[in-house]
Every structure is written in structure tokens, then in C-alpha cells.
């Protein structure tokens, strides 16, 4: 068998193995998985937040996204220059008095805004515990905990 024939055999065997895996185990699981071992100090997995926990959710996405698909009862705080940062501060302060545990989420893991918002909430020095949700809105959507999904 020449080199091209051998290559074809290797490719065929690889394809068969891949097809078999797909057939037996099904398509790859693309759901977000939070690995507690890889969490940063201020991060939290959605799975570790008890259902009905007394938490103030803060949505760091755009106002439009928050209105359309935020967590029910959540507060908006983003870094949109069109928004009034002092109004965000005041709204957060009012809610923190009643609910001093806060979890901030943004669109996905690339967003990075949630950590900045968490920093700003800590900067208010209201004595709240502030966490960032690993996986952000995507994790919440997949768990069915946002509006419209």
C-alpha cells in the first residue's frame, strides 16, 4: 500500500472512531459548566446559589438586554456612558440595605464588565458581599432563571 493509501486508512479509522463516539455518547455537551476549582476569589458558580436565596442580582449588560432578558427583580448597573452612574449607585445602595448579598453577571465570560461593576459596588463600602457569576447570563439562561427563556 502506498503512502496515500495508508493516509486514507488512517483518516477512515479516525472518522469511524469519531462517528462511533457520536453515535454512542451523542453530540458534545455545549452547556456551560462551572468548575469550582477554577473559580477566582470573588466568583461563584450558579449551582452553589440555593434556589430562593436572598440575593440581589445586578445585570451589567445593556439596558435593552436587561429589560428583555434580565433576572426577575434584578438591578441594572452597566458602564454605558449614556447612563447615570450616580443613579446606579443610589439604586444599589437602597437595595443593599435590604439585601446585602450581591451577585453581578454580564453577557458571557469575555465581557469583563461584571467584575468592574462588582468593584464599583464594593467601592461604595456599604458592607455588602459582592460576587461575580462565572458564566454570566449564559449560565443563567441555560438554567432557565432569566426572563423570556
Amino acid at each position, binding site marked *: 500500500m502506498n503512502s496515500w493509501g495508508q*493516509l486514507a486508512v*488512517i483518516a477512515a479509522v479516525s472518522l469511524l472512531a469519531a462517528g462511533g463516539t457520536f453515535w454512542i455518547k451523542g453530540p458534545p455537551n455545549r452547556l456551560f459548566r462551572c468548575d469550582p476549582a477554577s473559580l477566582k476569589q470573588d466568583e461563584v458558580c450558579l449551582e452553589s446559589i440555593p434556589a430562593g436565596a436572598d440575593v440581589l442580582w445586578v445585570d451589567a449588560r445593556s439596558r435593552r438586554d436587561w429589560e428583555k432578558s434580565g433576572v426577575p427583580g434584578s438591578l441594572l448597573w*452597566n458602564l454605558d*456612558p449614556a*447612563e447615570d452612574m450616580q443613579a446606579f449607585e443610589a439604586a444599589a445602595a437602597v437595595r443593599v*440595605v435590604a439585601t446585602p448579598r450581591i451577585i453581578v453577571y454580564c453577557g458571557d465570560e469575555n465581557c*469583563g464588565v461584571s467584575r468592574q461593576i462588582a468593584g464599583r459596588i464594593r467601592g*461604595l463600602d456599604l458592607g455588602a458581599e459582592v460576587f461575580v457569576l462565572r458564566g454570566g447570563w*449564559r449560565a443563567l439562561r441555560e438554567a432557565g432563571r432569566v426572563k423570556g427563556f
Partner: protein
Amino acid sequence: MKIACGIWLALMAMVQAAGLDFPETFKELHVPASATKVNVDFEFTNRSDKPLSIIKFDSTCSCMAVRIQDGKLRYAPGESGLVRAEFDMGNFSGAIDKVVVLWVDKDAADKPSIVLKVRVIIPVLVALEPKTVKWDLNGTAEPQAIRITMHHEKPIRVTSVQSSSAAFKCELKTIKEGASYDVIVTPLDIKKPGLGIFRIETDCDIAKHRIQQAFGTVRRPMPANSEFKP
């Protein structure tokens, strides 16, 4: 067999070949307090041996627009280009981090292969320390001070301080005119939780730094351990 394995490995290497190379993926800028817009440029070169296309780009924030030089999205091997992030400063102050993400060719929708970071540092002209004064419920209602310090080449004077709540009394005390002030806050009822928002107006010549706010709370002590951490 050796040749077949060689071809196979070469094909795998092509799949993993280097893509668009950015000499800098993080930039930090210090901007004047009065700045309203700032541009940050990221240069790149296609270091692979095949043409590459930027199929999508996003700033993850409405405060930042992203442009690719000349709108060009396809780059031949060795060809260079430029990504420009245009940051609208709004009413921000302090350090702001922003992210620009680019998807190249077959990147998965949730896994852009290029992540660029911009840190913009805007001077804080009117600093409050602490931002919040706190009292424990049923504790002692001792007055506490919020120190206001100006960091501007011109003097900034506090023109008024107003409390949103009648449950907190606040008085303005001048330490050094145009440079330093104290707001002395006293809770009038320490037996129930409360929040006061103190609006501090100044004569700062830059509008976005003119009005500040601080807080006062009477609160229940927080539990020592969080129930969330795994």
C-alpha cells in the same frame, strides 16, 4: 507509513498554525479629567501562511466602538492591519477596563480567539473617603466624617450638601477652602435600619465631576460566613 504519518502531522500543524499576531493585547492610558473621547490602536500582522479573515468584532460595551482600518477584514500572509477602539468617556472617573473581542475564520461563536484589553485611567478630581459611613443597628450614634479632597490644578469649593433622609443630619466643615472639606454625619435614629444619600455639589469647572454622592447606613451586622462559596 512514515510519509503518511508525516502528511497527517503536517495537516494537524496547519490547523493549529499561528493566526493574527498582536504585539500588544493590553494597553493602559492615562487621560485628562476633561477628556470626552479616547482612541486606542492595536496593530496586528497575519503570521500564518494562509489568508485570514476577521469575521466579527465586538467591544462588549456600548461605550466603545470598534473599527478595523479601512474596513478591511481579509489579510494575506504577512499583511498588517489595525484595530481602533474608540472609547466614549461618559461620566466615568477612576480606572475603567474595556475588552475588544475578534473572531477569526472558524472561531466558535462563544470562543473568540483574540481578546484585546484597554485600561483607561481618568483622574478623580473630587475624592470622598469613606464613600459610606456606617452604624450598627442599636449601636451608638456617634458622628462620623466623610473627607472630601480635591485633586485639581484649580481650587474646587463645596457649594452645598443635602441629605435624602431626615434620619441623618449632615454638616459641612471646611478644612482648607478649595482643597479639603469634611461632611459630618450623625444618624438621628439608630434603632431601625436606614439609608441616607448625601448629594455634594461643587463648583468644579468640569461638569461630570461637579456632583458627588456619599452614603450613610444604619444596618444589621452581616453574618460572618457566606452561604454561597463552594
